[in-house]
C-alpha cells in the first residue's frame, strides 16, 4: 500500500522516539516524568500500528486508531490519579 522506504523511515523515527522515551522512564527523577514518557510511548505506538496496518492492507486500521485516540487519554488520567494517591 505504501512504499517500503516510507514505512522504514516512519518506523525508524518512531523507534527512536520510543527508545528516547524509555531512556526517560529509566532516568526520570520522579514518577511524573516516567508517566509523561509512557504517554509518549502510547502516541508512538498509535503511529506504529497505523504503518503496519497500511503495509499489510488491514481494513480495521482506522477503527483501531479511532478507539486508541478516543480512549487513550484514560491511561494518562489514571496515572495522574495514581500519582496523587487517589485524591483529586
Amino acid at each position: 500500500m505504501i512504499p517500503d522506504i516510507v514505512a522504514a523511515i516512519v518506523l525508524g523515527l518512531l523507534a527512536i522516539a520510543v527508545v528516547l522515551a524509555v531512556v526517560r522512564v529509566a532516568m526520570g527523577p520522579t514518577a511524573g516524568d516516567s508517566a509523561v514518557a509512557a504517554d509518549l510511548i502510547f502516541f508512538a505506538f498509535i503511529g506504529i500500528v497505523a504503518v503496519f496496518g497500511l503495509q499489510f492492507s488491514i481494513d480495521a486500521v482506522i477503527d483501531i486508531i479511532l478507539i486508541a485516540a478516543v480512549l487513550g487519554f484514560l491511561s494518562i488520567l489514571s496515572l495522574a490519579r495514581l500519582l496523587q494517591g487517589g485524591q483529586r
Partner: protein
Amino acid sequence: MNADILVTVFGSALLILGAAVITSAAVGLVKLPDLYTRTSAVGTAAGLGVALIITGVVVLDFSVLNLIKGLIAIVAQLLTSSIGSFALARAGYLTGSRPVSTTVPDELAESAAHNTLGRSGEDTVHKGQAD
C-alpha cells in the same frame, strides 16, 4: 495513475512529518529540564503528530467512512491529549515536583498562598461579628 502517485507521495509525506514531530517530542522529553516543560513537549507535539499520522492514513486509504472516522479521531486526539497533559502536570505539582529554578512567576503557589490568606481573613471577620 498520475493521481495515484500524487496521493501516495502526499500521504507518505504526512506520515513522515507526523513521525518526525513525535520524535521531536521524544528529544524534548530527554533534553528538557523539568516535568512541566516535558509535559508541554509531549502534550502539544505528540497530539499534533498523531493528528498528522491519522490524516496520512485517511489520505492513503480514502473512503467517506474513513474520512468521518479520521475526523472524529483527530478531534478526540487534539481535545484529550491536552486534558491528559494538564492532569499529569497538576498531579506533578500537587505531589511536590519542583519546577526548574529559572521559572520566574510561580502563579500557582502565589494564588494558593493568596487563597489561604483570604480564607483566614474571612474567619477572623466572621469571629469578630460573632463577638
